[in-house]
């Protein structure tokens, strides 16, 4: 075996390190730090956070963001498990590749365009309305577009894709003999799911659910175009602060609140992954 020539391999990571430190890590740490300062007062202060807590429009926006993200994770999970099961156990390998393509492909294009395309379908005189009128003859006003449920719906589609993909990628690695053994011992499909597939595919679900939560809680496009501007989520407020009032300490505080929410909601999930790894 030839010995590698003497070289400083770590030089290969330098460009990435400089970029990630200088344009990702430091900006985020600086932003978190900025939220702890106030123009008038020296030193660190929680003034921005108490101002946040005292402003009903902001706390309402935060609650909407949480409701949105949690609903999306729950709704997408309910649909993603059967879909992942289908892709893993009910189709041939070649077909599976095709079906994964079908599921993932639409999400390569921008969130904005996909959210916008839903406007036409869900609008008060859109396709759904027209179809309902054709079918029932009744002229019902949908009132669905520009509401929180419309945002939940829009982001759930993304969540279904992501969680299905993640659950599937864990499920597909399960040794089929474990399931056969379960069947030999008299287990039904349901017990196979509960006792073999569910625990082994759980890590995939956790990653998928965590990423879906992060995307849903930080998205502005779907809430702006489907949820409307009257009852904004936190991400919409952040967008308007940065492009409107340009109050940077305020933007920093909102960003920090978002970081805190993500850490608080996602950390327990990730601990769960470690828990399941230790068990198995």
């Amino acid at each position: 075996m030839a010995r590698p020539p003497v070289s400083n391999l770590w030089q290969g990571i330098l460009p990435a390190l400089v970029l990630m430190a200088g344009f990702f890590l430091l900006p985020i740490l600086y932003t978190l730090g900025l939220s702890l300062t106030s123009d008038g007062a020296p030193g660190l202060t929680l003034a921005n956070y108490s101002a946040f807590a005292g402003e009903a429009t902001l706390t309402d926006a935060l609650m909407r963001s949480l409701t949105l993200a949690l609903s999306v994770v729950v709704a997408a999970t309910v649909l993603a498990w059967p879909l992942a099961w289908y892709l893993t156990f009910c189709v041939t390998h070649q077909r599976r590749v095709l079906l994964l393509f079908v599921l993932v492909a639409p999400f390569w294009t921008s969130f904005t365009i996909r959210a916008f395309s839903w406007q036409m379908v869900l609008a008060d005189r859109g396709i759904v309305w027209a179809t309902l009128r054709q079918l029932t003859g009744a002229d019902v006003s949908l009132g669905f577009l520009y509401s929180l449920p419309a945002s939940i719906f829009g982001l759930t589609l993304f969540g279904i894709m992501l969680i299905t993909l993640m659950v599937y990628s864990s499920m597909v690695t399960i040794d089929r003999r474990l399931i056969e053994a379960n069947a030999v011992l008299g287990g039904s499909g349901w017990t196979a799911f509960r006792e073999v597939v569910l625990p082994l595919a759980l890590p995939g679900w956790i990653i998928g659910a965590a990423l879906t939560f992060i995307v849903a809680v930080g998205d502005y496009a779907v809430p702006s175009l489907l949820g409307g501007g009257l009852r904004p989520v936190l991400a919409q407020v952040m967008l308007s602060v940065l492009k409107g009032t340009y109050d940077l300490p305020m933007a920093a505080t909102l960003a920090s609140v978002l970081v805190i929410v993500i850490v608080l909601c996602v950390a327990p999930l990730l601990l769960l992954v470690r828990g399941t790894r230790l068990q198995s």
Partner: protein
Amino acid sequence: MTGPITTRALTLLFWITAGVIYLPIGVMAVFSFSSARYQILPIPAYTTEWYTRVFTDGQYSAGFLNSILLAAMVSLAATLIGFACAYSLVNARFPGKNAFTLLVLAPLAVPLLLVGIALRIWTTMLGLQPSLPLAGLGQVLYVLPLAVLNLRNRIAQLPKSHEEAAWALGASRLRAIMDVILPACRAALLATFILCFTFAFDEFVIAYFLTNFSVTLPIKIWTTLVTGFDPTINALGTMVFAFSLTLGVTAQWLLMRKDP
């Protein structure tokens, strides 16, 4: 293990889900050929007027050109930086390697909105003027995780013996990378470039926060959508969707293909 009735129900569930995901895009594509200014049914007449307008309206074509140039620079930079980084991650041992890997992959788990806001606050503090190159820098770190993941997988699959043979013949580390590793990664490099391009081309929020007056296509689309409706968006959206789909499919095909 799964009964025939359950299988049929699951098949139905899959295709209904897929149908719902594709429905609005189909609707947008149909309306992009409608002569009416608003989405009304039945469609009065079919026209390609909106498609022509995409190319003749200076604002859209300027945005398109900006986006193409920016995305090309961003994905070129991300592919090169990603390759260097991936090669070192596969071959080198250094203290803090796990922490570094986490740092490089971290943008995947942080909302882009946060990255955008933090970058705007940071660059303002540094006194940097918002500009397209600055936005490009931000986008590089957004697509870098994709590049590193793709290329790391590919490099790790390569048989070690080829590189060792080059070393035995006296090649330096860099020479061996250029003559052995890079050619073997051609398809993966191209796929990575295309994939990064797809995501950079559609990226909105970093570009929105880090530029003032230069307009990329996603920014133009966004401002048009929030300030009022323009039927040109239907045509543009359909084209952007077809464009992204083509790029994405090509990249995946290149990645799945068995390299010679």
